[in-house]
């Protein structure tokens, strides 16, 4: 069993739709939770990060963490074609002397105009 599970999609939605992207995890040692957006042939860019259960909002993006259920979500409101990308969830645990990230496999999102 993978430590982090993410539905690979692909997910296709019309412009303006609300998108929900989800990850589950099995390791209670994860402390911080992140979402990255990766456009084709580019490096991942950090969208949001949070360390507590609850919601964190940034513009059209909302990150939600439920540590009791080991479940995190990213919601995108009023989705735009420019949101078309692969979204990666990531979590940190401390290993040795450096923080490491454990990534989900990514969800490919297409927003149709």
């Amino acid at each position: 069993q993978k430590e982090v599970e993410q539905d690979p999609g692909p997910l296709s939605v019309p412009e303006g739709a609300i998108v929900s992207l989800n990850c589950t995890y099995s390791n209670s040692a994860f402390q911080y939770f992140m979402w990255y957006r990766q456009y084709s042939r580019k490096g991942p860019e950090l969208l949001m990060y949070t360390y507590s259960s609850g919601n964190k909002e940034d513009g059209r993006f909302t990150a939600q963490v439920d540590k009791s259920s080991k479940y995190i979500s990213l919601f995108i409101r009023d989705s735009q074609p420019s949101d078309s990308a692969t979204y990666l969830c990531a979590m940190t645990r401390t290993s040795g002397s450096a923080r490491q990230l454990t990534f989900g496999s990514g969800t490919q999102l297409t927003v149709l105009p």
Partner: protein
Amino acid sequence: SQTIHQWPATLVQPVGSPLSLECTVEGTSNPNLYWYRQAAGRGLQLLFYSVGIGQISSEVPQNLSASRPQDRQFILSSKKLLLSDSGFYLCAWMEGVGETQYFGPGTRLLVL
């Protein structure tokens, strides 16, 4: 502000040839540095990380090696490439007491 560079952007190499990919970070001191590989349609696989000059930790035993000759320079190498080494190689940095990693633009490697 911090900037991370990787080169080359794209590389096509024959099987058995050597490899050297370079990553440099600007605007920060003593960062943690990471090398990842991303196969097509797959997640990120951590290959190496470093917490300081000359300090390398390997996550997966394989055909690759890493070195950190300077504080903000991280190099990924191979003496003889395999077909399975093809992929998208990403360098990332993190502040020593930070929680998030920041990625470079990546190097696309195709081994033929």
